[in-house]
């Protein structure tokens, strides 16, 4: 037997042992989970609300399965991931039917109380429903082209509505705010306050400094993305300043992202301790 084959067999044996240990630990964890669940949220208890208890146990189990990804990607995680997508879609479909399609489309057309009501509904709903069905043409490769008519209307109408509103809200109003005169940012009551007093610092110096930083940052970042002139000498310095502003902005975004992700973890831990294990914090 060659050295290679022997090494492969040793590796395969180690992998099998590791897999057996992992399955054993998983089985123990599952048993421990059910024991703890039954102790803290017993659905068979005469005072318990079985629906709520089972819901909590399922939610806690799925939370642990999702956290198992931190150890390694695994089939349970994949199953839970697919379950999440499926449940979300199923829930959205039921709500869409119950809240919208049934009362606003199905009932007026198929459960109209009078012929006049049916005619009126047909008049109002025929075009939108037909366009909706055209969109479903995407399902078929052969007949997918019919959806283009619905998309053409969607895009044309959407762009027509969006362009003036977006221009006003995201360009004109932002430009107005960016070029605001300095006297507009200061607190007029603080103008008479002695220099370097708290009122002056908060009402005058702070806002003016902030406005100047915003102005310098806007110009520097815009210049960084202005490629029509070569960034040399002064241009290079302004461009580098723009990079610094961008880096600070990315750092702030990253910090907020870390905070957001930790908030989600805190939410899950609070659920596991407070609701599943029923441990009340003070």
């Amino acid at each position, binding site marked *: 037997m060659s050295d290679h084959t022997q090494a492969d067999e040793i590796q395969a044996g180690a992998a099998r042992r590791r897999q057996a240990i992992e399955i054993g630990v998983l089985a123990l964890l599952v048993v421990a989970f059910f024991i703890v669940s039954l102790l803290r949220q017993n659905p068979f208890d005469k005072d318990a609300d079985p629906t709520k208890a089972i819901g909590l146990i399922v939610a806690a189990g799925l939370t642990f399965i999702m956290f198992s990804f931190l150890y390694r990607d695994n089939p349970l995680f994949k199953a839970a991931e697919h379950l999440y997508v499926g449940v979300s879609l199923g829930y959205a479909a039921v709500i869409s039917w119950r809240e919208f399609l049934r009362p606003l489309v199905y009932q007026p057309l198929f459960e109209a109380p009078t012929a006049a009501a049916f005619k009126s509904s047909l008049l109002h709903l025929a075009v939108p429903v037909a366009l909706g069905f055209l969109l479903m043409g995407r399902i078929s490769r052969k007949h997918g082209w019919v959806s283009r008519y619905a998309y053409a209307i969607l895009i044309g109408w959407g762009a027509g509505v969006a362009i003036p509103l977006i221009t006003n809200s995201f360009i004109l109003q932002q430009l107005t705010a960016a070029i605001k005169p300095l006297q507009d940012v200061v607190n007029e009551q603080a103008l008479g306050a002695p220099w370097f007093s708290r009122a002056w610092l908060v009402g005058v110096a702070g806002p003016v400094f902030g406005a100047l930083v915003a102005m310098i940052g806007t110009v520097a970042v815009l210049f960084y993305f202005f490629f029509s002139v070569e960034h040399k000498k002064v241009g290079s310095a302004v461009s580098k300043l723009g990079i610094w502003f961008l880096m600070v902005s990315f750092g702030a975004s990253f910090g907020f*992202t870390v*905070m957001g992700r930790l908030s989600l973890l805190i*939410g899950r831990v609070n659920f596991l*301790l407070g609701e599943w294990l029923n441990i009340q914090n003070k």
Partner: protein
Amino acid sequence: MRTSQNRPQHYELIRRIIYVGIALAVILSYFIDYRQKFTPSPESKKVFDKVESLSPGDHLLISIDYDPSSEAELYPMCLSLLRHCFKKGVIPVVMTPWPGSVGIAKKGCDEAAEDANSMFGKKVVSGKDYAFLGFRPGATNLILKMVDNLKGAFDKDYYGQPTQGMEALAGVNSLKDIKLLVDLAAMGTVEWWIAYGADRADIPMATGTTAVMTPDLYPFYQSNQLIGFLGGLRGAADYEKLLEIPGRGERGMLAQSATHVLIILLILGANIHMFAGRFGRKNEGLS
């Protein structure tokens, strides 16, 4: 020895130690009976002050643009806002343009209504003291319709009651009759509500968003298109502190701080390790 991803094998161990450290910081914080002191941010205070300035009978519209995956950050905000409205007699009008958000929106309304009874001794009833309009599709089209005719966009509420003649919506014909619009969002809907709703109807708007989205709100705050905003769990904690009703937001602040300190220490430790290694290699090269 390096793994298939070309990383030293002990990195896997270090990665897991970091996870355990973060988990321990969060779990231990849950058991510590200590309320962290903090000052609410000016952005959060402006939202609170605006709601506080509303008169009983005024309408505040809350759009629930998040699903259960963002519950940890946004649900405490929703609860605090609704409690504040019920405390002051302001009428909240709650709706969602997302089918997946209906359940969590209803949960918020039900819980806050129960709290109004237990906390303020007020019996709050749907259709009279608040309106839960449920879901309608259309996204931006829905907002455009609401600006022109709110009751046309929602002809019935979630419970099937006609909005025409509903006591809670008396005097509200369009979005223009709303005194404050609040978008609680985990998706990119803040821009929709600004452009298609608040700017067009010319009404004040505030938001509560996940921390990830918060940095993008500052330009709108600076241009006064937003009167203020609640950013992430910290924003929720701010509002709870201002309302003086502690909740999940305030409780989460200690865990948040503990994990931040841990992350800062880890960054410092990793940098010291890197520079020490570099310095050691340099010295070895010299000798």
